[in-house]
């Protein structure tokens, strides 16, 4: 009988747990990412289920944000960054030449660490994406879209009297929810969140986490977080990255009570960071 039968990492590695699913919204196969000569991500294979929240955790520099940015080709904006392998959004390879990146980013939206509203009014922030993608035919439809997006983010009551005021006048938590409203206004299928609460206080964090939970009814959400407790609270699945390798993917309940890989255990219990 094995005393503590956890797996350890070998040179050739296989992700521990359940990285692949039968039905997936996004499917990642053999993805490597290079910054010039330096490899940042090693042979990642992962499926992300529809209307699921998956969190990516790991020490600083483990590649979790780099990986997240592959999912809507944000890494294209970095000249020396090279992504190989295959990432499919449903049946379409998002790195295919025929893909329109602007359209892709409407389908796979993103929310960043620091709330980054445009220096425009609250209304314009939400209306902007819909306008450039031609999602509405007239002002009335656009008004309705702005209202419904703000309502879904629980922000409507707080801002309905001051829609034309600058978005930068909102509190940090409100700004972040506005950015989420802006992301969902273009009706994406997937929302990527890169440490969305790290600049927020605990109350604003709780509000955003509740929002993530509600949005997961309709959207697939991938969240990178430094807060393990946040990953435990908001996600159904958790992926642990270490030095560019996807070490373990499992149900969040498993990862936080009985992780199967030694490195995951050491990270979760605060032994490596």
């Amino acid at each position: 009988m094995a005393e503590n039968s956890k797996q350890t990492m070998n040179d050739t590695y296989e992700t521990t747990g359940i990285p692949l699913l039968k039905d997936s919204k996004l499917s990642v196969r053999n993805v490597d990412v290079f910054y010039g000569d330096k490899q940042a991500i090693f042979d990642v294979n992962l499926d992300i289920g529809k209307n699921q929240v998956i969190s990516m955790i790991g020490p600083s520099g483990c590649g979790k944000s780099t990986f997240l940015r592959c999912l809507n080709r944000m890494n294209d904006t970095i000249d020396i960054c090279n992504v190989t392998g295959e990432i499919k959004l449903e049946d379409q390879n998002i790195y295919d030449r025929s893909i329109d990146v602007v359209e892709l980013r409407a389908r796979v939206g993103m929310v960043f660490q620091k709330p980054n509203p445009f220096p425009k009014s609250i209304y314009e922030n939400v209306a902007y994406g819909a306008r450039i993608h031609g999602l509405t035919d007239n002002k009335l439809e656009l008004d309705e879209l702005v209202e419904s997006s703000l309502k879904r983010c629980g922000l409507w009551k707080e801002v309905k009297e001051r829609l034309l005021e600058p978005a930068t006048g909102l509190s940090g938590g409100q700004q972040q929810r506005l950015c989420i409203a802006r992301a969902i206004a273009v009706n994406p299928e997937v929302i990527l969140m890169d440490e969305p609460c790290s600049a927020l206080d605990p109350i604003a964090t709780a509000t955003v986490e509740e929002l993530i939970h509600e949005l997961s009814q309709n959207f697939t959400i991938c969240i990178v977080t430094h807060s393990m407790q946040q990953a435990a609270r908001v996600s159904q699945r958790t992926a642990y990255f270490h030095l560019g390798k996807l070490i373990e993917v499992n149900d969040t309940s498993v990862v936080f009570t009985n992780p199967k890989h030694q490195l995951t255990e050491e990270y979760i219990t605060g032994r490596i960071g």
Partner: protein
Amino acid sequence: MNDDILVGGHISRQFDQELDEIRSRVLKMGGLVEAQLDKTLDALRSGDSSGITDVEKLDRKVNKLEMQIDEECTQILAKRQPAAGDLRMIIATTKSVRDLERIGDEAERVAHMVRHVLDNGAAPKSYSGLLALGEEVKELLHDTLNTYARMETRSAVKNMRKDQDVDDEYARVLMHLIEFMKTDPDHIAGALDVMWAARSLERIGDHCINICENVIYLVEGEDVRHTKLSRIKKQLS
């Protein structure tokens, strides 16, 4: 078992220290409970009830330690939000100290019965059977405390097998007592005392097994309560 993975190796050394202190206190509590049972069996063996006051004194210390360890575990849950192995350690510890405290209570119960029988000057014949049962339980408790100290799942399973022997011995003592009561109805009251004591000893065995199950949960993350021994072996292989 790698000790570091259980209590050591955290980036926060203070956390290591807190977990280490809890573990030391549990072991101390185990030592006190073991002493309670030893002194009770000594009294039974020698027919001298003077050591039973010590059993009562020890019980008060055991109770105090239970509360102290529980409070420390609560503080860790509140302040450290432990996960994975650390979380299992805290859960297993709070459960195990409850079992240890109950072992202490059962030992005290046996001690009171021994005093009662000795003070009445009557020694039922089944004393020797009770003593044999007591010795088996004492060994099981000792092994269980070792299992906890070393965090060994292998010996946890071995102890579970041993508890089945304790149950068999208990059944034998009961059969013997029933026969005794049939043939000597004048001593039914004394025989009932012995019966309750045997029951308490058997319960100590059950609490030992709970602690062994907690060790398996702590080390492997497997909940093996209410599971047959053969299945547990399969689960852990």
